[in-house]
């Protein structure tokens, strides 16, 4: 090959590949995939990874699946079984959803690249779609008050519920909306007693009851986000009653050219808010059995964003001061025994200050919310 050939080929190649414009680097996605690869290498669990939804008591960052994803069929099957003697390390439980296999695994805290004080949780298997789901969060740990500290996560057509179990719990019975009864036996994973189960996204979970050797400890009736995942919040001891069920729209409007709304749901689970612009729904729950004072409950990170909270009976108006936007004044809306407020946040608003006033103009509560990293 002559020098001219080489030069000509170089110039042609350079023009050809230089003519495409790569999009922005998908760094976060690559890192998520990378974490999954690392976890699979270490736990020998087959499946890929994607994003995670860590639904705790307060924040539920992604509540609904996209419309393109299938809601739970009215008829479905779900099974669960504890790890066997030859199961990979870190396996909490496995089973089938609609005949498709699933397994829930956690990495050793601080290992596998999770970093100090962190642990990977991996939902994998065909039931969770081709990518599965991986997340990094503080290691699972039992709660002193709740028998089970359930976390929720979803991927593809299924949702997983997993969490740490208090020492006095012998087993947990979970009743699903179609009558299926799952019995969860805690297993020690990396020194912590844990359970997990999976059901289709959108399938109602009716209740979970924790049993000790002597009988019922407590029952949790989760809040099932419409078409989405369930979140366990309040655990009720035998004879204890929660809030009566009620729901209502507490805010709606348009911001940055998009419609937004926030809805409050009260019931035996406590108080949950859900809302946002289409496709960016978020929400939060508080495990309470009575009315709450004034506080911001959730804030969506979507664009545009929304925020919502509970207000004490004396609150007459709430003024929000979003960064990069004009102040917004809203009046509380009552749903059941509780007052609520919500307000929109314009595009690019990283932080918001808010103040709640009574009818005399006195500030009764205030706060500031910042998005992580702002």
């Amino acid at each position, binding site marked *: *090959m002559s020098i001219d*050939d*080489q030069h*000509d*080929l*170089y110039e*042609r*190649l*350079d*023009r*050809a*590949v*230089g*003519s*495409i414009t*790569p*999009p922005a*680097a*998908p*760094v976060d*996605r*690559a*890192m*998520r*995939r*990378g*974490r*999954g*690869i*690392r976890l699979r*290498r270490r736990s020998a669990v087959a499946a890929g990874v994607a994003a995670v939804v860590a639904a705790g008591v307060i924040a539920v960052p992604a509540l609904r699946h996209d419309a393109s994803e299938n809601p739970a069929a009215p008829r479905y099957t779900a099974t669960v079984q504890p790890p066997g003697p030859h199961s990979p390390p870190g396996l909490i439980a496995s089973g089938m959803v609609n005949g498709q296999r699933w397994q829930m695994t956690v990495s050793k805290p601080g290992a596998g*690249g*999770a*970093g*100090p004080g962190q642990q990977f949780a991996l939902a994998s298997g065909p039931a969770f779609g081709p990518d599965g789901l991986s997340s990094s969060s503080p290691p699972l740990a039992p709660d002193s008050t709740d028998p089970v500290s359930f976390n929720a996560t979803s991927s593809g057509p299924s949702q997983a519920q997993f969490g740490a179990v208090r020492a006095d719990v012998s087993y947990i019975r979970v009743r699903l909306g179609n009558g299926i009864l799952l019995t969860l036996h805690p297993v020690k994973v990396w020194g912590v007693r844990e359970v997990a189960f999976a059901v289709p996204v959108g399938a109602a979970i009716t209740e979970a009851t924790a049993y000790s050797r002597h009988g019922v400890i407590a029952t949790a009736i989760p809040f099932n986000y419409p078409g989405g995942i369930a979140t366990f919040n309040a655990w009720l001891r035998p004879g204890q009653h929660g809030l009566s069920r009620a729901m209502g729209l507490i805010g709606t409007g348009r911001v940055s050219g998009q419609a937004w709304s926030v809805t409050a749901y009260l019931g035996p689970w406590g108080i949950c808010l859900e809302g946002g612009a289409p496709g960016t729904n978020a929400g939060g729950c508080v495990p309470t059995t009575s009315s709450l004072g004034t506080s911001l409950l959730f804030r969506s990170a979507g664009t545009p964003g929304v925020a919502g909270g509970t207000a004490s009976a004396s609150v007459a108006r709430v003024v929000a001061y979003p960064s990069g936007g004009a102040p917004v004044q809203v009046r509380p809306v009552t749903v059941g025994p509780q007052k609520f407020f919500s307000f929109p946040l314009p595009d690019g608003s990283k932080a918001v200050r808010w103040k709640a006033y009574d009818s005399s103009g006195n500030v009764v509560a205030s706060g500031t919310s910042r998005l992580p990293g702002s």
Partner: protein
Amino acid sequence: MSAQLDEEFRDFMHGRWPAMVRLAYALTGDQGHAEDVAQAAFARAYASWPKVKRTENPEAYVRRIVINENRNRFRRQRVAERLTEAPPESGCADTTRQYDERSALIAALQRLGPRQRAVVVLRYWLGLTEAEAAAELNCSVGTVKSQASRALATLRQSAELVDGGFQ
């Protein structure tokens, strides 16, 4: 992984992403595949980032993964993708000379096997020496020479390139 390592990886990926997508495009001939391959390569690099960053040349490491990812993709899709004399669909007419040139070269490259394609891209676009290309492809210098020779012979026979002046 520590926040500092994450930040280092972010900087690295932001900096090298366009180059890796272009490399993958030269290898795959399709921008969508190229982005998939590049992303998969960076994911693998992140999975071993503490080790990768300690290597003498992290970029070369990722480049190797891109080449391997493409080879694996080719293996997986060998049956699904059949090379034809002419593109199966004509698409919209594009009158720009740049587009014609790009199409011709990319089409000609796609007629090469994945290893020959990689040799051409490494040697004649990235300008690697035969020894460097051999190291990245995990083969001997002799193999690089022979693959390059065959690849160039094929390219010289490509009607698109001959018409465009490469002979």
